[in-house]
């Protein structure tokens, strides 16, 4: 059934054939006129964003200060706030190349792989209660191209008879083909076709039920047997149209392209019985079924990466990473990358997608480019004297909630005594300590919700931080490696306050907060240890610590 909205849209400007034509032309022209491919990624980003700002007559916010930029960059690239020593050193450095050096150093560190693994795993495996971490960690460390990872996740890896690697992407969803179809469409192509399951897509006239079931057909022969999955070489998806007509679906990609296949025959009852018996045996023997000689899932990878259809795949990963680092995608929602949903910066998206394709789907290249752009390093503050530009212009940095992983680790780094992360430590030992913090941070992280679009903090989180033993024992306990003990033992109050602010907020203190802290500590000076714990609590739970700003 079509909703009234869709009628309105189709009857209105979106449905206007002239408009559609104009759109196509605009995009085609844009493709011809894109900036040269050899431009550095960060320059292309700033060029296109600046063009739009100029067109809209908007002046972007100033660049963030060094401390702010360091915190943001570290949270994004290595998943934690800087230590006080790191923050002070970065702020103090007068090296004009320090930002580039920082990004390159962070991206070469083992913590980078851990952070990207955690974030990618959260996105790829949401709603499955399984993890791809092991696979992702190995792949990201080797910087395996994204198209190869896509192939491995959908078809499987060479030599993974146990099915413990990338194929878990499919295996964890094999019981629910609709979910598998939807998730694969969303995560790899930026397209959610599930609206077209029960009726033709209300907002995208070009997406029909045939598209949905066509996409489903790529996965419909996949089955699970015991702990393994296999793929049959026959089987057609049959569905009911809105008119009640029963229809066999063809193997059809999002673009409407229908794939030709080798003839497949439904086996007779005896053969089916035989097959069932074989599967039972495999299940008993805990063995994986043999690989199909003809795989529909492999066909999906093939067409997804084919010249001409490839932009879906390339644009989806660009938009996904852009969203992660910039706080919103150029196309929102992330799963609605269709031609009725115009990107905020179509040329930039096209340029970056082309760059992805021509650089072997190198995720690092795009991440580095974004992290070095001026757009990335703007302040998140707006003084209010002028109207605040809309978020889709990326004129001001967007305040982003930390992921559970980032917040968990950062809290632990924040409450560690500065000596614990002394600059005398050897690199290995330093990273070991960071790893310990990451491990310890998971306990609290496990109680937090992964932030999606329009994320709202739950009162459960506030209650957990306010009244739980967990938070008290993990963040506010005594100990020589703990910040609270260090502060209590610091004789000069001003010095202690400076230490606290550098440690937790990774920046120099501001007068106003010094006054507030001073007042609080003064009032509770009969119990300095308690006072410091409560002051630390107040800082840890403040918005500044909870968000990447």
């Amino acid at each position, binding site marked *: *059934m079509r*909703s009234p909205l869709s009628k309105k849209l189709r009857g209105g400007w979106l449905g206007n054939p002239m408009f559609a034509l104009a759109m196509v032309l605009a995009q085609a022209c844009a493709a011809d006129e894109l900036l040269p491919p050899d431009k550095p990624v960060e320059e292309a980003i700033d060029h296109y964003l600046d063009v739009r700002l100029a067109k809209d007559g908007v002046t972007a916010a100033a660049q963030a200060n060094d401390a702010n930029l360091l915190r943001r960059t570290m949270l994004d690239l290595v998943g934690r706030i800087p230590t006080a020593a790191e923050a002070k050193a970065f702020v103090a450095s007068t090296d004009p190349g320090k930002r580039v050096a920082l990004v390159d150093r962070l991206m070469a560190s083992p913590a980078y792989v851990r952070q990207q693994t955690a974030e990618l795993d959260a996105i790829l495996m949401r*709603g499955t209660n399984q993890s791809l971490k092991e696979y992702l960690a190995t792949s990201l460390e080797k910087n395996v191209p994204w198209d190869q990872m896509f192939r491995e996740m959908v078809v499987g890896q060479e030599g993974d008879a146990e099915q413990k690697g990338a194929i878990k992407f499919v295996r964890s969803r094999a019981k*629910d083909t*609709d979910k598998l179809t*939807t*998730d694969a469409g*969303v995560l790899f192509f930026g397209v959610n076709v*599930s*609206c077209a399951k029960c009726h033709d897509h*209300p907002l995208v006239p070009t997406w029909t039920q045939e598209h949905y079931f066509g996409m489903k057909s790529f996965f419909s022969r996949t089955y699970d047997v015991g702990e393994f999955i296999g793929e049959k070489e026959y089987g057609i998806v049959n569905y009911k149209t809105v008119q009640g007509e029963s229809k066999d679906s063809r193997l059809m990609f999002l673009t409407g392209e229908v794939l030709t296949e080798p003839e497949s025959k439904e086996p007779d009852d005896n053969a089916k019985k035989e097959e069932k018996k074989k599967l039972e045996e495999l299940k008993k023997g805990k063995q994986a079924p043999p690989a199909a000689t003809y795989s529909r899932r492999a066909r999906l990878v093939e067409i997804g990466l084919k010249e001409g259809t490839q932009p879906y795949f390339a644009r989806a990963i660009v938009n996904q990473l852009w969203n992660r680092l910039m706080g919103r995608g150029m196309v*929102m*929602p992330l*799963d*609605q990358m269709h031609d009725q*949903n115009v990107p905020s910066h179509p040329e930039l998206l096209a340029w970056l997608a082309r760059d992805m394709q021509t650089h072997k789907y190198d995720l690092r290249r795009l991440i580095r480019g974004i992290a070095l752009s001026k757009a990335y390093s703007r302040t*998140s*503050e*707006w003084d*209010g004297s002028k109207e*605040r530009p809309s978020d889709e212009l990326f004129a001001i940095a*967007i*305040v982003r*909630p930390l992921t559970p992983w980032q917040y968990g680790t950062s809290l632990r780094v924040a409450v560690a005594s500065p000596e614990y992360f002394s600059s005398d430590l050897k690199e290995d030992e330093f990273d070991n300590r960071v790893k310990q913090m990451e491990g310890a941070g998971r306990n609290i992280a496990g109680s937090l*919700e992964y*932030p*999606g*679009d*329009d*994320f*709202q*903090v*739950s*009162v*459960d*989180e*506030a*209650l957990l931080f*306010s*009244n*739980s*033993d967990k938070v*008290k024992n993990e963040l506010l306990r005594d100990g020589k490696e703990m910040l609270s003990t260090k502060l209590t033992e610091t004789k000069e109050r001003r010095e202690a306050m400076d230490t606290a602010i550098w440690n937790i907020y990774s920046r120099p203190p501001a007068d106003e*907060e010094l006054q*507030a802290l001073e007042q*609080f500590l003064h*009032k*509770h000076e009969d119990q300095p240890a*308690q006072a410091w714990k*409560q*002051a630390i609590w*107040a*800082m840890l*739970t*403040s*918005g*500044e610590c*909870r*968000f990447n*700003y």
Partner: protein
Amino acid sequence: MQSEIRNPKSEIASRRMFLGAAAGLTFAADMTVLNALKSPVLANELKKNDKRVILLWLAGGASQLETFDPKPGRPTGGPFKAIQTSVPGVQICELLPKLADRIGKYTAIIRGVDTGNGDHGSAARMMHLGRRDEPSIKYPDLGAVIARELGKADSQVPDYVSFYTATEGRGNAISQSGFLGARYGAMFLTEGNSPPNLRRLEEITDLDHQERADLRKLLSDRFARSRQSASLSSHNEAYSRVRGLMASEKLFDLSQEPTPMRDKYGPTLFAEQCLIARRLVEAGVPFVKVSRAWWDSHGQNFETHLELATELDHVMSTLLDDLQERGLLDHTLVITLSEFGRTPQINASLGRDHFASAWSVTLSGCGIKRGSVHGKSDEAGNTVIEGKVGAAQIFATIFQALGIDHQKNYHVGSRPLPLTDPGTQPIREVLA
């Protein structure tokens, strides 16, 4: 934005009432209206408009034959008789004598429920969401929608409390705020009758607890001053509710309830949790769910129902009387719901199996035409022969009874998502 209005504390009560009344209207901070609401008479009137819900979740699938749709004398009828209710011509199972007396006063029975899903997991999800699960959209459950529609931004009590102490079926009885976000998630109690993290730790004094929260607010406000983000606001809002919620801990403490009242409800856990539910709605909690497990009587159906239906009869009757006496029933909707009913056929273990083709749901109190019966199953109870309804219509009816437009849209990205599936009609016959 409701959260942006700042009032002195003394005004919070009247403001909450106002917001309750203004739910559904486009809200502007018009102080003249707010001042008018200071009048106690008007405020009281408005308070009555604050709607609430208590959902009694009969987990595992209560038998309609041993509760609200008996088939005495039939081969499938079982050993229990049907008894006359206070509504002429309407009979229910003799295991529910107290409710039989009260149907006419409080309750509508919906008999023609056909939900077509006899699998615990997905059926329970359906009866929580009012629709089938969809892979791409995480729908909020009834409690989360009610929390969103009837809760107040700055509420000092929880919006959604859910009791599920038994372990059987707990994983099915989802509490899911879905795309509405964790802000509307349930305070989910699986152990005991008091929610986690509501009580201040002994190591910190109440004064320190308050003062550190003040310091937190000061630091946070400084940070938020020049930044704009809905997530950031929700973070500060969540913390601003902590102290109020902690004060609501007493609501969960039954020792504050007079002994005669506790005796009235009885000593079972279900009874205690229903009494807490009454305390909660009285204090303004919009949605409370009390789960009672495990009705899944594949064997010994009649013993199981002798125990569980008898308990339900007593506790639900007490709850309805109590709400009525306090003047709360007119704005509190009490619902009984399961994932499905049970087969008319009695199996070899004297049990009844899963059955979703003709079962029953009840709605009592707020917005309900009391004593009404909708739908009819055939003589054996195998199919619905009149007034067939599914999950969506039941949900639409619930929303209508509470004055919520069941066709209202939420938006996820560009996609409009109506509270109930398009074209759904509420069951007018049971609405007041």
